[in-house]
């Protein structure tokens, strides 16, 4: 097997296959559709939203869903549909931001550990230490230090993502490292950076991809829980967890104020989890993520 052959062989046929395999699985197809729909809704929220999410209609307080307000209004007479759309933006941003930040750092650590065996032990012990803290404790501690807010939540979730990503990237990179062609490429005098980018990274992509999809769901779940506790997004910002928390006091009078954002979170997380499962089945069923 030549060094150039593997990626070339990989790239051309894989994309359509994955998609086709995803579409064959009902859960995969539906979840892919829902995820795309969620992303589009968030992206086009300003154009789709029927109203300003902050506009208060004092004559329509806590109105249940009806013809005028499709999803009803909250305790301040604000349109829940508009707030859901903008809330989707905030919630997804929170999830993606922490995934990108934590995932990038984690992947880097994973590659380094796999590639430079001398630092492996040290880096992985560090990751083990970080894994000893559950994400919720990072959330609590950062909220205590920097004060409650979206930034604290994103930092906390990023930190919690780092060791997980590092472990996954390291283990899939190690599989490749054992193969002959890496040694061969090294022998040709390829620089380390190039080697990692050209050979190591592409072979970890499916693991990274599957993990990221699943992790996004978890991160959103955690972040919205922190917002629900009042440690995350602060009012009047529309964030799904915070919206659910604000409606909690009126649960018995106007349950829709809490229920709608909660169902929203549930659907988002479910879609990402199902998509992640389907992706794993399609890409590499042996992945343990």
């Amino acid at each position, binding site marked *: 097997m030549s060094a150039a052959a593997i990626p070339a062989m990989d790239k051309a046929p894989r994309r359509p296959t994955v998609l086709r395999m995803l579409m064959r699985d009902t859960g995969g197809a539906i979840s892919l559709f829902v995820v795309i729909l969620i992303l589009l809704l968030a992206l086009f929220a300003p154009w789709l939203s029927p109203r300003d999410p902050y506009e208060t209609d004092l004559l329509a307080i806590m109105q249940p869903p009806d013809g005028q307000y499709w999803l009803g209004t909250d305790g301040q007479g604000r349109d829940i549909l508009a707030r859901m759309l903008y809330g989707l933006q905030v919630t997804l941003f929170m999830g993606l931001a922490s995934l990108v930040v934590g995932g990038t750092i984690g992947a880097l650590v994973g590659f380094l550990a796999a590639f430079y065996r001398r630092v492996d032990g040290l880096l992985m012990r560090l990751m083990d230490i970080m894994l000893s803290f559950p*994400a919720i404790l990072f959330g609590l501690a950062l909220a205590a230090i920097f004060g409650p807010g979206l930034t604290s939540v994103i930092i906390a979730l990023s930190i919690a993502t780092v060791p997980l990503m590092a472990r996954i990237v390291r283990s899939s990179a190690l599989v490749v490292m054992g193969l002959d062609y890496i040694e061969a490429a090294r022998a040709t005098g390829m620089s380390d950076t190039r080697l990692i980018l050209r050979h190591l990274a592409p072979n970890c992509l499916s693991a990274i991809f599957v993990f990221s999809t699943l992790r996004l769901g978890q991160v959103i779940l955690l972040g919205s829980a922190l917002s629900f506790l009042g440690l995350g997004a602060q009012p009047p910002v529309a964030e799904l967890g915070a919206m659910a928390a604000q409606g909690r006091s009126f649960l018995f009078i106007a349950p829709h104020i809490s229920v709608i954002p909660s169902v929203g979170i549930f659907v988002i997380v479910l879609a990402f989890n199902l998509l992640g499962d389907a992706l794993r089945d399609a890409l590499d069923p042996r992945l343990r993520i």
Partner: protein
Amino acid sequence: MLRHAVQRIGLAIPVLFGVLLIGFLLMQVVPTDPATVRAGPQATAEVIAEIRAELGLDAPIYVQFGKYLWRLAQGDLGVSIINNVAVTEELGNTIGPTLELMVSALFWSIPLGIFLGTIAAYWRGSLLDKAIMAVSVAGVSVPVFFLGLVLIWFVGFQWQLLPFTGRGGPLWSMDGILAIILPAVTLGGVFIGPVARMTRTAVVDTLSAEHVRTARAKGLPERLVVLRHALRNALIPVITLIGLQIGFLLGGAVVTETIFSWPGVGRLAVGAILSADFPMAQGTIIVLSLGFILVNLAVDLLYAVLDPRVRQA
């Protein structure tokens, strides 16, 4: 085995250091003046100054810091800025309810999760398997607060079947049992999904293992193969994974305690953070972290005892 244990305990030391570091940070980055917090709404500047002196807050930061370390060494976590109660005392009052809640949640969710996971593995590929897995994915995806709010709404409010307003009393009293049902159902509810999934994977894995295949070849019925061989071996990784999921449980417990006004450490922590009660926040975070580290360590060692491969290594 011994080496493994030593290694694990050795790993716990830097973790412990990390916990204390977070504690240090917490005490140093105090954005609000505790004296004004204590003085209340109608206090004048002189009153605030007097309270500051009373609290020892006029001392330089390194003096306060040194005092803090010394106190920590003596097992004293300080006094709440807000209600003047010793942090250790408050922690002592709240740890019990938190453990109570967690254990009650695990008490029903782990057996049920293992049961569901085993059934799914036994009839793998069937509609039942798909249904169980769908439910468990849903369980992993549902926000704890949503589950809690739905239970409060129906069981607590509409049907008035069970209380949801905090701890009713000790667990051996009727009030205590009634009061813990809804919180335990909520917290356990989000735990079933992961347990069922992990059990199913582990059982399916062991089913393809050598000795299981041998057992099958000997003509044992599949039911016995699953129960006697696969499940027993599958329990080891399940236990470890459950240990790793304790963090997940902890997150759920913080939310559950808040929704159900459960007087536990999680609710105490959130309240302390929101009210900038730094000694209290620090104390709760240190204790929660320590608890988590201990559980992880225990699970690790248990795993070593159970799994012959690690024992030999």
